[in-house]
């Protein structure tokens, strides 16, 4: 097969930007819809509890969403490729354990302990990527199996509880304020900007879209498919690792199962945000909106004081409802643009 220059990638810059804008714009609409849903949920909590302050609530929803906001970026990248990462919960737990063991409650060790922990998490992601790109193991099984395996390894090394405290600086990072605003909110803002720029503004990001929407075409165009796949899974491992660090700082103690509740919500956040599961579609702002929505939903459900059964039913129905709302907007948009 003769390799040609990749036409879409060698287009002139304005043309590329225009194409890019055309792709991003219609995707911003569902983002707005999902964010509006989240806002409605927060306002509903306020109406249910007139004594509460709206800013306090907004801040609580944002601060507790940070783990999901970070971890679901990685999940989003793998889904963009038409894959999935089921090892996220385990990697986050390993990261939290590792940072506690390495720092042993000392801030002085953070400068090397943080990179070491994150490198380890990225390495697990890279192993996933290698298995998927080179050994052609389906992502679902590769990441499931590596999650099971590394959980076992973690259990063997630590028997489940970090015997050391988390460095105080990490705790301060998660509980501190700057100019009256919790520091995690600044972190979220920074992360969202970086993530959105990577996914929708860099060559690598665009190439991921190309692979996700047409792997065969991407291969014909000579894109480094294996390399990009490994990169995406490594980034997913890295994000899960960051999420684990933040979790350890937030709860000032680490357990191996600390990340488990994250897995399913990362997938939900990505798809609620408008990504297509078979790959090639979805922007990070959508995922971000999905994560905020899920966090807000949990707040409302906590304040409602219902039996767990009814909570689950409501949660399930609201998730499907959010999807429905989104799809109708899509339909309307499609009709309008045709």
């Amino acid at each position, binding site marked *: 097969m003769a390799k040609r220059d990749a036409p879409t990638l060698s287009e002139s810059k304005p043309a590329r930007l225009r194409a890019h804008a055309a792709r991003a714009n219609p995707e911003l609409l569902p983002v707005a819809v999902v964010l509006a849903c989240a806002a409605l949920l927060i306002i509903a909590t306020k109406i249910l509890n007139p004594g509460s302050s709206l800013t306090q609530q907004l801040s*609580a929803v944002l601060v507790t969403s940070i783990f999901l906001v970070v971890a679901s970026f990685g999940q989003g990248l793998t889904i963009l490729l038409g894959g999935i990462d089921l090892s996220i919960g385990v990697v986050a737990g390993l990261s939290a354990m590792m940072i506690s063991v390495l720092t042993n409650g000392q801030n002085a060790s953070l400068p090397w302990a943080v990179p070491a922990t994150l490198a380890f998490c990225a390495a697990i992601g890279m192993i996933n990527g290698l298995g998927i790109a080179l050994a052609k193991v389906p992502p679902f099984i590769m990441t499931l199996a590596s999650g099971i395996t590394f959980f076992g390894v973690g259990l063997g090394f630590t*028997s489940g*509880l970090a*015997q050391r*405290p988390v460095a105080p600086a990490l705790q301060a990072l998660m509980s501190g304020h700057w100019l009256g605003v919790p520091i995690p909110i600044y972190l979220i803002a920074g992360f969202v900007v970086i993530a959105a720029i990577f996914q929708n503004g860099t060559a690598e990001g665009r190439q991921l879209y190309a692979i996700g929407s047409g792997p065969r075409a991407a291969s014909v165009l000579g894109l480094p498919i294996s390399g990009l796949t490994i990169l995406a899974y490594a980034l997913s491992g890295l994000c899960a690792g960051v999420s684990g660090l933040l979790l350890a700082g937030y709860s000032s103690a680490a357990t191996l*199962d600390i990340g488990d509740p994250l897995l399913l919500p990362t997938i939900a956040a990505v798809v609620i945000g408008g990504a297509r599961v078979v790959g090639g579609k979805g922007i990070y702002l959508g995922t971000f909106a999905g994560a905020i929505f899920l966090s807000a939903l949990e707040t409302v459900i906590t*304040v409602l*004081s219902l039996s767990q059964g009814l909570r689950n039913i409501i949660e399930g129905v609201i998730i499907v409802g959010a999807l429905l709302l989104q799809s109708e907007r899509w339909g309307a948009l499609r009709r309008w643009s045709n």
Partner: protein
Amino acid sequence: MNGLPRRLKTLPKPLLHCAGALALILGGLAQPASAQGEHYKVFLDLSYSGNVWQTAAANGVKALAGTPPYDKTVEFKTVISGTDVQHQISDLQSMIAAGANAILFYPVSGTGLNRVIEQGCKHNVLMFAYDSTVTAPCAYNVSSLSGRYGANSAQWMVNEMGGKGEMVINHGVAGTALTDLMDRQALGVFKRYPGIKIVGDFYGNWNDATSQENVAKVIAAHPNIDAIWTVDGTYGSLQAVQQHRPDRLVVIAGQSNNGYRLDIGDAALQAKGLKGLSASFGPADGPYAFKVMMEVLTGQLKLTAHNVEYPLPWVPYKEIKLCSGLAFENGCNTFPESKVPALFIDTALNGDLLPELNLTAVQNGTAMSGATIKPLPAVTYADDLPGVNCTDCKPPADWLEPNRVKPIPVPN
């Protein structure tokens, strides 16, 4: 599409290599099994793993199994079955088939294992469940149910709150018999006091991080909460309050994480309104169950009932006392911050019933050097609670009422 038969011929080759390699690797792990004379084959079957409570309980059991004389007489093995009931059924069946003399297990379901438990009893295997209970009549349950944590802790909180205030309920895991029972006991007490308003509740899944996130959200919606009732996830719940409302703390009851005990014993925090109770179910229940089981197995103990009681830990904030060494001596019950991580559960140790265990033993799962197994004092039996630890049985008349704390009169 020709050439298919040729490809089929090439197929088994890599497969055989792999299978051979696999058999080699795994074959190396096989150990000869022997259970003759004074030897006993004993299994520990865990369900959940990777959290603090389960780790502490399992380590305590492992340490005891390595303590003389059990290190010589017991062939001991730990299996982790995970949270799927089918998986645990399969592992229990494997243990029975492997000729187990006794199995100590943390049941993933209170009723779902009953059939395999009966299989085990038919094969003369001693089946002991710890902490979480099963309803199979032939199984033994070692738990702290008679301590009525739900009713007593709720009453303690009501008394500390003066019978009124806004509170949050941190349930455990939805759909478990234990959570159901504790809720019934606690809510029954709270409902008696019209001044107590439950403004938010959530299922914290006995998990500190989850509990912390949820309390943070409730506080944002209800800035004036006065109290939080928990079964576990207590330390996380309190942390959320300390972060979001550091100047006004709460009345709280729950687990015995060392960080939590340090907080509720801290005079500065008490001055800000923190009144804490450290009770709930202790991981030392696991090693205690192991000792009971081994005494039954070796014929030193005859049990007359199937539900054995492990005393419910109970340390209100006024009784917190810091230790200097690595063991609970002279009435101390809390370690300094430098000795253990905040989430370490202090009730993993019990100096009276389990003198064989020290801090290192329950942290690493290794036997304490120089220790030998001491005989147990007389066991006490737990209440029969239908649907919780038995099927056709009668509960005591007042099983939902507090029996340790005296109720205050309802304020006007």
